[in-house]
């Protein structure tokens, strides 16, 4: 698991929960606790091996305790004990994956878990967070040799910005479609990591035209999400490493911008017929 997948799971889970349960910065200490793991991105020191195992245990325990508390009920975003568990999920996973690299063999499993997590969000809205533990566990396995991938000079920050734009699209006010869209997107990313498929050459400038529909909120999810997933997967493998920390924040900006564009916040004058 690399830090971007961690960010993706934690942030997208937070955005999804924000939509469902009105998570708000106005919730005071609870909101601050929930957002605390994001501040860890600024800490450069790699953790000791035992700390990585401890992190995995914390993630595992917190995700089970949190999901048991809310799975048949609803999340009171003002409750500090629940916020603490959410922070524990993010913090523990971060400790586990902070300095892990990108290993080709594990990436299939990692993105498979992401996809499965979002698919299971159809039943339990917190399944994406629960996916953090199994995805982080992969970071503890010995690295396997990465297949050489030619980089194409894509800016990782731009790429992650667009991925942020991709998750939790207009369907995110619906319990079903938001999760399914992200699950399909992640499944397509998984496929791009399979042997042979990952070696395919893609005309990126041409293919990136497929990103344009991101600006349109009603494109059917089953067309748009897998297409964008394929593009994202191939591009993820061909961006230069290591990624700068700013790339992680670009994902956050993309998420927020997507929320603004497609949730009727009426930013930027993006009006589609019938919305006004």
């Amino acid at each position, binding site marked *: 698991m690399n830090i971007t997948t961690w960010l993706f799971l934690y942030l997208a889970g937070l955005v999804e929960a924000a939509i*469902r*349960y*009105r998570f708000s910065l106005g919730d005071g200490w609870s909101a601050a606790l929930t957002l605390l793991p994001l501040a860890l991105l600024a800490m450069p020191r790699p953790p000791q091996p035992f700390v990585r195992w401890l992190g995995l245990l914390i993630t*595992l325990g917190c*995700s*089970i305790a949190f*999901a*048991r508390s809310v*799975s*048949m*009920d*609803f*999340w*009171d*975003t*003002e409750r500090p004990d629940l916020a603490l568990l959410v922070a524990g999920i993010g913090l523990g996973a971060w400790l586990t994956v902070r300095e892990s690299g990108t290993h*080709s*063999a*594990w990436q*299939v*499993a*990692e993105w*498979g*878990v992401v996809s*499965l*997590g979002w698919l*299971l969000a*159809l*039943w*339990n809205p917190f*399944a994406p967070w*629960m*996916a953090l*533990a*199994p*995805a982080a*566990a*992969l970071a503890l*396995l010995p690295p*396997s*040799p990465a*297949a050489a991938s030619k980089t194409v000079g894509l800016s990782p920050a731009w790429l992650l910005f667009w991925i942020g734009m991709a998750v939790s699209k*207009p*369907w995110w*006010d*619906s*319990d*079903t*479609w938001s999760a399914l869209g992200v699950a399909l997107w992640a499944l397509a990313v998984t496929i791009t990591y399979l*042997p042979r498929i990952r070696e395919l050459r893609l005309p990126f400038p041409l293919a990136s035209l497929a990103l344009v529909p991101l600006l349109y909120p*009603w494109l059917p999810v089953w067309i748009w999400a897998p297409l964008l997933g394929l593009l994202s997967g191939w591009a993820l493998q061909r961006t230069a490493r290591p990624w700068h920390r700013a790339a992680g924040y670009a994902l956050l900006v993309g998420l927020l911008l997507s929320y603004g564009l*497609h*949730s*009727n*916040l*009426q930013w930027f004058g993006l009006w589609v*017929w*019938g*919305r*006004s």
Partner: protein
Amino acid sequence: MNRPRFHLLAGCLLALLLFTAIMLAVGWPLQVRVAAPRLGMPVIDQPGASMEVRLVTSLPLLLPDLQLSLDGPGGVAPLQLTGSRWDGAAAVLTVLLPALPDGAYALRLQTPTQDLQLPKAVFLRSNWPATLRLVQIADLPPPGREPLMRRFIAEMRVKKPDAVLVTGDINYTGTAANIEFIYSQLLQLDAPVIMTAGNHERTAWHRYLRVFGARDQRTNLGPLAILSLDSAHGRDALTPSTFRWLHREFAHLDGRRPLVQVHHPIFSPGATAAAEAGGTGGYLRGYRRAFIELCRQYDVAIVLSGHWHQDAVYDSSGRFRADRVDFPGTKFVVTTALGADVRPVFSDSAPNNGYRWIEFKGGTLGAYGSDPHNPVPSTALGSP
């Protein structure tokens, strides 16, 4: 098997096993929650009709052994299961309504580990009166104004409407005590309660979902299809999913006349607002034009809103109407607060706490204001 493939397989298996273990730790023993029907989103139909029960389960695609029954004035009767399917997170069970006397019934669900009772979830009605009488309320009393709620309940027990529509801002303070008081009062009504959320529900959204359930919902009431929309998520708008849901419901009215309730008024108070109205006149923004067009296309009788704490009526062009009751097209109606503070948004409308009394003859809208000529005034609390 070569090493990369072994790694691939081992990684996938490990992740899958861990994920399965976590899901089991969360969802075992298997539990269910009744999403619908319940108070606020009831089923109202005749004995022998089909009814859908939506259940959320703690583990995907698994249902425990369960028995469903109705419990009410006519006794207890088990519900006969005729079909089931999965709709995303929910198991949807189709059951037949038993031959019991008309009245309000609790839905009872028993599993090996749970015994759930949902009072006033099902209303059996064998026939419909020539004139259907609905009551609409919005912006319910906050703590300190409880007597207004009690007076309303007492009036409704005398006037006996066929249904009570609650158009949002139910839990003003967001506290558990506030929503529990409102729930306990609504439970005393003989009529079915049909609910939609207001902006104040978002201050404790989990409590609203726990007590009253869903967001967008449809309730069939004899010749009417009542569509309750959620506009109140802090964006004063219908979201794409809500709008798409509305479109789909309009396409399957089955001969029923549609009626919509949505917390935010559709039109701006504009020039009709009194100077002292200040910033109180929030209204629907996202999808407004398309919503009005759908109302015209599907001949929506009336759109009921709250939020302003004062009465107002508009026609489809957004013109404030205080001249006559029977102008053509959909009536876009704003109803005063039942118990929250009243506001002087309009000089043409006397501020008072009250409710709206609406009558339908068949599918045709009749009266919807307390003045037979002027549609704007609602019925003040305490009126005869």
